[in-house]
């Protein structure tokens, strides 16, 4: 067994033991019966012809239905823990991961940057928001039993809660070119107090939300979306993450990182209902890291007053307001 260092890893191991047990049982069953038959019914005379046996519907049913039921138990158990793992909790700390050939660039929401290392505290839920600058990579921490592809032009997430301080392998698990096997690092799990010390020892860097605000101003987003994202000629950005967005083509979607990225790089693709195609494209002007900073800034904006962005059908009261706290994080199910 590899080291088990997250709340998720023990669940995976339990299921793994179940699967191993079933596998060993059936492999032994088949092997023993096979060997028994092969020895017992070995050919004793050259001319012997055994009596034919046609088959048995009862037996066929038995060995179709029993494996099916066992398979369904595996399916249900596996799907349950996967589903649980797939939905990020709302109160998780967000950490941004940008992968490129062949390194991991990591930034904490408090501003600390790391390369090929990830420091996290024990017992706190951590959500990784990941994207790639070039090809597909995969963020894999065996001790946490977690893995997710990191795609260019898209944001994937995964979350974990570490349970045991220590240093664990971080691997790139999706083949990404020449130095794929060098794209490794470590996840360092610390006691919360040690982690806080570590954070304060590295506090000189700018938080992504602050950097994002500077970008927001220098790129001129202010003129249409307002200084605090309250909206104007462009839709409101405050509390945008996880909100339902109504588009000019009649569709609705839930705003998430990928939608925001698309709207920055290709604004005409999914226009918010009630707004014209007046925004210029920022394709090629904003790096994946800067995109993350812009999003961190948007997430820090507070909702003020009524919602102007979705005039056609305002979301039900109570749906957006609880999320409108600063750093509420993405609530969009992804």
């Amino acid at each position, binding site marked *: 067994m590899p080291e088990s260092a997250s709340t998720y890893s023990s669940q995976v191991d339990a299921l793994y033991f179940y699967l191993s047990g079933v596998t060993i049982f059936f492999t032994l069953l088949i092997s023993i019966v096979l060997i028994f*038959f092969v020895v017992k019914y070995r050919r004793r005379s050259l001319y012997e012809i055994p009596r034919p*046996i046609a088959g048995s519907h009862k037996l066929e049913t038995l060995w179709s239905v029993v494996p099916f039921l066992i398979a369904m138990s595996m399916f249900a158990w*596996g799907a349950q823990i996967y589903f649980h793992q797939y939905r990020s909790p709302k109160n998780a700390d967000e950490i941004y991961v940008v992968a490129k050939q062949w390194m991991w660039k990591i930034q904490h929401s408090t501003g600390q940057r790391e390369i090929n290392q990830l420091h996290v505290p024990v017992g706190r839920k951590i959500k990784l928001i990941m994207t790639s600058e070039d090809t597909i990579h995969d963020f894999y921490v065996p001790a946490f039993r977690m893995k997710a592809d990191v795609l260019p032009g898209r944001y994937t997430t995964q979350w974990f809660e570490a349970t045991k301080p220590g240093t664990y392998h971080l691997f790139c*698990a999706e*083949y990404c070119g020449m130095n794929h096997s060098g794209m490794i690092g470590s996840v360092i799990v610390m006691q919360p107090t040690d982690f806080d010390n570590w954070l304060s020892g590295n506090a000189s860097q700018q938080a992504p939300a602050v950097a994002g605000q500077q970008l927001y101003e220098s790129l001129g987003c202010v003129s249409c979306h307002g200084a605090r994202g309250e909206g104007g000629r462009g839709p409101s950005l405050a509390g945008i993450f996880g909100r339902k967005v109504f588009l000019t083509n009649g569709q609705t979607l839930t705003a998430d990182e990928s939608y925001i990225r698309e709207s920055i790089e290709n604004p005409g693709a999914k226009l918010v209902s009630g707004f014209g195609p007046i925004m210029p494209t920022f394709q090629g002007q904003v790096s994946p890291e800067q995109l993350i900073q812009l999003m961190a800034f948007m997430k820090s904006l507070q909702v003020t007053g009524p919602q102007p962005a979705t005039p056609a059908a305002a979301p039900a009261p109570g749906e957006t307001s609880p999320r409108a706290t600063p750093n509420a994080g993405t609530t969009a199910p992804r």
Partner: protein
Amino acid sequence: MQAPETFETPAAERVNYLNAQYGLKSWLLTKDHKRIGLLYLGSISFFFLIGGLYAMFIRLELLTPQGDFLSSATYNKVFTQHGIIMVFFFLIPSIPATLGNFLVPLMIGAKDLAFPRINLLSWYIYLLGGVITIYALLAGGIDTGWTFYVPYSTTFSNSYVIATGAGIFISGFSSILTGLNFIVTIHTMRAPGMTWFRMPLFIWAHYATSLIMILGTPVIAITILLLAFERLAHVGIFDPANGGDPVLFQHLFWFYSHPAVYIMVLPGMGIISELIANFSRKNIFGYSFVAFSSLAIAVFGFLVWGHHMFVSGQSVYAGMVFSFLSFAVAIPSAVKVFNWTATLYKGSISYDTPMLYALGFIGLFTIGGMTGLFLATLGVNVHTTDTYFVVAHFHYVMVGGTLLAYLGGLHYWWPKITGRMYPEGWGRFSALVIFVGFNLTFLPQFIAGYLGMPRRYHAYPPEFQVFNVLSSAGASILGVGLLIPLVYLIWSMRYGKRAEANPWHLPGLEWRTPSPPPTENFLVTPLVTWEAYEFAPPEELRVIGMFKEDESLEDADAVINGKPL
């Protein structure tokens, strides 16, 4: 074993498909399915040797944790080329194009395949694809992994992606033509009396395989074309920098490449059904369940491709559907294993080399199949996918399954193909060596994988070394085990004992014609009056040479009822 009486002229004087014509031209322009089968046999063996050579380099490199034997760029090419050669140029054509080509007409009592010229064309197409691929390997090779994932393959790789893709694209047509030929032949050219449910299960398996070949292969062709467009012109289908979707490529790729797994393993299952029934002299237990499970696998196999993509960012609900369907497709495979085992019950089991391969297949395929369930299970897949666990799993299915079945089938039909017996002692010995070497190679990889060793790693953390050393040691045993048959099979073509028409004393149609068969397969059109694997009727046994003419039917009756003579 006492030589049963044969009713034909002595083999040495007979005209058969091998000595009917001589000269290179008579081979290169042949329309005889048996000769084309041999052409394929030669060419896939060549590709198998190349693929095996790459495997040797991989295992040498992984002996130590540091990347010290090959550079990382070379290592990436080596594992990519190992995969491409083995999958597209060995595993996919292996059984259908050689044994299938040779035996489908013989086993249903036909003179040839329905389209002999198309059959020859398919070999040339395969060869052309192979030559282009070999050119790409010699010119500089390819480093994308056999899966060609974008955008690495379209934008970042500086290797011969398009040339290799062209080779695979072209060889795919040979697959389609072979599948087409089999389907038409099985539908229209069965001998009188050979009803669908009298067909040997080898034929059912090839029918199911042909369906996948025809329906699946065009998809990989389209995928490779799109890949080439994207790489040459950056049209923006897959590359997110141009508004494309890299996951779309994975969907298209696996839509073919998962069913392709069944192209590789279904014919193997067909061989195992033959071997288990014939070497225990029993009709197969639950014939129709085994036959239909092949079709069920072929159909369901098209619906499970998404289980390769549980961590690729596809929707969680899609993941659940694909996981469910993947469990569903496991059931027909399980049914086959149970039926094979039940067939042995109260049989008369011989320990000839082909049977040893068949028994090995059942054991290894059980492990390969059961570990497939780990990967179908969503929660466990997240941890094990893209690790050595996957590598071990598919080698258990592809090598422990397909390769063992192929070798078993090759030994079983060798007397029919060449008219010569292989040396039985060496055969059993090498089967044993292969079994031991195989397990030593791939069992440790399950452990390394669960411990977290990612696949396609040129260098790895030192704690994984012990498993890699075991694996490399096993691979060298496996390599020796595979070289032994290569040597003695070639030796036996000239020096082996002459084979009788029916050396195993079996009822199948292919054993009721001389070894090697005449060009037209059967001197008279056979009339089939027996069920598949029907060993019973004594008159029949006399006809197929199990009894001497002077033995009375009473003696035969005594034999059938199990009484001592």
